[in-house]
């Protein structure tokens, strides 16, 4: 088995999950509680990766992050190198690609919090930020867990975007799913099978955790 690829995938997935935990929460909060009439447009943009072919998304990220366009040039002037075909580029692409997998469960979690509890917190003097950390977040724990785990798992399994943006550089951008593809292409079915089986078990485990967490969270507060 290609431990280097597995380690790289884990590193990427942990980073994506951590970034989305921090960046996805404010987006989800805004999506849940904003009354802006054009909110649905933002929601649609966030959800785009769910329906776009990964190659399309990968293509635009590649072009966007490239040296000919503003985000790419900005990055280059700041850090001295371009993003595509680096771990940083892979990370940026993966964060965008997994955004809906974090934002939507977070948002569903926030949505499930009884509005009156939020209002009760306000009348007791809590600011919006305090209300978020003391009431909304603790009561939408299952949504937070689901969002983090899903974005982690989704990053482990991504293929098209990685190939477009990261290429296939061993130790830098060759992740586990690309490794399986390589092994199968090279006719190493035994190795491909081992890695594939590992991913299958991992995915099953992840989904079990999510469904388990949701069930427990539901039964915990159901009595009220």
């Amino acid at each position, binding site marked *: 088995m290609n431990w280097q690829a597995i380690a790289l995938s884990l590193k990427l997935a942990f980073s994506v999950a951590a970034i989305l935990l921090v960046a996805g929460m404010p987006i989800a909060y805004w999506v849940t509680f904003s009354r802006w009439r054009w909110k649905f447009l933002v929601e649609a943009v966030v959800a785009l990766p769910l329906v776009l072919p990964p190659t399309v998304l990968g293509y635009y990220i590649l072009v966007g992050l490239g040296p000919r366009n503003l985000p790419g040039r900005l990055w280059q002037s700041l850090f001295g190198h371009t993003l595509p075909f680096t771990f940083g580029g892979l990370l940026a692409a993966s964060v965008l690609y997994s955004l809906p997998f974090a934002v939507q469960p977070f948002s569903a979690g926030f949505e499930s919090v009884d509005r009156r509890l939020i*209002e*009760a917190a306000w009348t007791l*003097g809590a600011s919006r930020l305090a209300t978020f950390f003391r009431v909304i977040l603790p009561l939408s724990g299952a949504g937070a867990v689901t969002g983090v785990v899903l974005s982690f798992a989704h990053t482990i399994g991504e293929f098209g975007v990685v190939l477009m943006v990261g290429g296939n550089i061993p130790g830098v951008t060759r992740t586990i799913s690309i490794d399986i593809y390589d092994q199968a292409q090279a006719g190493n079915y035994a190795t491909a099978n081992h890695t594939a089986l590992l991913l299958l078990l991992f995915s099953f485990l992840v989904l079990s955790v999510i469904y388990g967490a949701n069930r427990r969270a539901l039964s*915990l*507060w159901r009595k009220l």
Partner: protein
Amino acid sequence: MSLEVAIEKQVQDFRLSVQFKADGPPLGLLGSSGSGKTMTLRAIAGLETPDRGRIVLHGRVLFDSDEGINVPARARRIGLLFQNFALFPHLSVAENIAFGLRRLPPEERNRRVAAQLSAAHLEGMENRYPATLSGGEQQRVALARALSIEPAALLLDEPFSALDTHLRSALERHLRETLAHYGGSTLFVSHNLEEAYRVCGELVVLAQGSTVAQGPKEEIFRHPPTLEVARLTGCKNYSRARRAADGSIEALDWGCKLRVAQPFAQPPAHIAVRAHHVRVRPAGESKPERRENIFSCRLVAMTETPFRVTLDLRVIGNIGGNIGGPAETAPESAGFQIQAEVFKQEWEAFRDMPQPWLVELAPERVFLLPD
């Protein structure tokens, strides 16, 4: 200590336009569901923004559309007791009560929580979670939590509606005692007349989003200013009315004339009498000293509650002078129906007596309503 409210808000087809002033005793906000009670409370708490108007609490302007003032809910220092109590399910009883005391030093916070726990008779429950509490205990925790921040006003939104009947009287007593010691303004929203009457000193009556009456509760119940208020305060019998030539009142829907003790300046639009003020007795009894407003009647239907009986009576004739004689002086179809409420004891005394019975709408119990 006063709370002044004058606000307007349009929500689709519903128009809220209320104004009242609360100072001193708990003020009851009475009205049927959909009359705007809860929306008014939410506007005062800062959870709803009125389109226009002004809310002033103890001289502090919380909302003023002309001056562009809108103090956010968290800075209003108003205790709100939600209908379903809205306890934080992930926090213990003590943590719920301490929720609004974050900025206090720990000793002061603990002292206040302990004081609230003891006032609410919740000692020993501080580490329990809301889901393990009974409805009554939840209500006491919610009240303690609202009071812990020492609010300038306390708003109670139908605090008993989520509770079983047998719990209510004890909790109501607890609430009345608590309110008696509370220094701020209290607003009590209810659709239950008797509850509002027991808890409050003054009442504001809302109908279709508007204030239709405000005053001391006794006054509101004795002399409802409009038919709407009479109905909302539980009056069951009313008829259109006009003044007759001989100084009595002609009840147009009832097709009879009635003598009324209450002096009236403007021409009355309606005449009304409360069910528990309608007197019923068997016809054979000794002569009463009065003969006015006495009719013969037959029982149409009867509803029993544990201590009282509600009687639907068809009034069949004005018996005038011939008490004890044959009662039928008007055809059955000409009569009108009236509701009476009597104690079980009284009911048992005449239930088996031969009908028709006599029904009296005493002149001092009948009241007139302007348009």
